[in-house]
């Protein structure tokens, strides 16, 4: 079973690395979206500092949703997903492998770029570490919950458009808790509970989301 998981993970990562151009797109998207905010709102440092946690997190949400669609779609269209389901391996395990690949390729760059975004938006230094931690814990949750949405829409022609409508309500709690923690840190208040809640959310998502996504894929295949 572990071999199947690792094999699929390796396959997805290899495929992505061979299409290096596609890897950059979520990163560029993130940078562009975040830089639009000062352009639209004005460069006032105090204002930017106040909105920084929300802006960075919302940009992360958008970037995740956009890159998610490709998570299953090409595999669905060429029949690979069907092969996975027929293979006899637990589909939820295979989903986990694909989600992990997605996070490594799309979520991790977001975490890595966040200090730069913090500098752009004048986020106080005290909260940058909390920003990075919240993204490190939160982006996997986004990938996991998003996989459920992708599983449901992968067989639809305009699935990508519907995807954002489906997953954004699910993302609301993650957004609230993560930005709450960053803002608490900026104010000098304890941020531990927020990160704790994110960790709890991550554990719950890891345990439950793959099964929901697997069920969604089976429905899409039927």
């Amino acid at each position, binding site marked *: 079973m572990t071999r199947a998981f690792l094999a699929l993970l390796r396959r997805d990562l290899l495929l992505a690395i061979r299409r290096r151009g596609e890897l950059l797109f979520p990163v560029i998207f993130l940078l562009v979206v975040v830089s639009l905010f000062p352009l639209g709102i004005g460069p006032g440092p105090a204002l930017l500092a106040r909105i920084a946690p929300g802006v960075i997190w919302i940009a992360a949400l958008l970037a995740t949703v956009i890159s998610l669609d490709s998570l299953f779609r090409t595999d669905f269209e060429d029949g690979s997903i069907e092969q996975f389901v027929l293979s006899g391996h637990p589909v939820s395990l295979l989903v986990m492998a694909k989600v992990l690949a997605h996070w490594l390729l799309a979520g991790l760059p977001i975490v890595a770029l966040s200090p730069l975004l913090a500098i752009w938006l004048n986020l106080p230094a005290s909260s940058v570490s909390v920003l990075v931690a919240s993204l490190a814990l939160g982006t996997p949750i986004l990938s996991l919950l998003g996989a459920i949405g992708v599983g449901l829409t992968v067989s639809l022609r305009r699935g990508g458009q*519907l995807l954002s*409508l*489906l997953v954004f309500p699910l993302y*609301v709690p993650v957004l609230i*808790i993560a930005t709450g923690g960053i803002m608490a840190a900026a104010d000098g208040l304890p941020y531990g509970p927020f990160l704790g809640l994110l960790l709890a959310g991550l554990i719950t998502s890891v345990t439950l989301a793959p099964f929901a996504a697997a069920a969604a894929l089976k*429905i899409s295949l039927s």
Partner: protein
Amino acid sequence: MNTHSGHKPRKNALVLFFHRTGSPPWFYGFAARLAPWLWLGFGLLAAWGLYLGLFRAPPDYLQGESFRIMYIHVPAAWMSMLIYAVMATFGFIALVWRIRIAEILAMSSAPVGAAFTLVALVTGSLWGRPTWGTYWVWDARLTSELVLLFLYLGVIGLYSAFDEPRKAARAACLLALVGLVNLPIIHFSVKWWNTLHQGSSIGVTGSNIHPSMLWPLLIMAIATKLFYAANLLDRARAMLLEQDLRKGWAQKLIARQPTSELPLSEQQGSEQQGSEQPGTGQHGSEHGEQV
């Protein structure tokens, strides 16, 4: 009929009822017979509740007359959440046992829930203007209702995106269940987010509710439940007929129908969404029909 082991007649009847609901023609007829009574009950209770609420309850000390919006806002908000739970329950039954009528009931519930959510949002906004001074505040309840509306729209949107009805229903039911698991999390996080940002602290229901203010609220609460039940049955009937157009029971049904009054040019193929068409009257007689 039989002399099986000691099944109590009452239990047998209930099981029999559930089995029967699985048969489309039986359910179609059952819904046709029950719905008019539910509408009647709704009409009477709503009239009574609104009369008491709009004309008999005394004005509120703090809010003056505008609190009367509560008699539609609060029941609508309650229904928006109740219907989601019921829809998810039907969805669970549909997914686990593959029961078609459960799929239909779940998908029929979604538009009604969305309608109540919309009503709750609009009335909440209009109530907020005289009370808080603005048409919209990001308070816990309104924000939660907004997210709930998005959840409903997602279910409806997903259902209508598929070509095949049963697959569509299964996908939408799974989404509804995922949303149900998330709903308490969303509610608590929004409520907590609201206190964090020191949003409006005026509770829309005020502190102590005088009994004469409470009765109309409870009556409207029951009335809205009857509305939901009646509308649900109507929608289930329409959906069953659309899906079973070619089946024998539907064909036999049509043969017994009186000729329609609609002019030929307006007769179109069945559509999924009931868009408004100005037919030539006859709305009132609908619920008295035998079918």
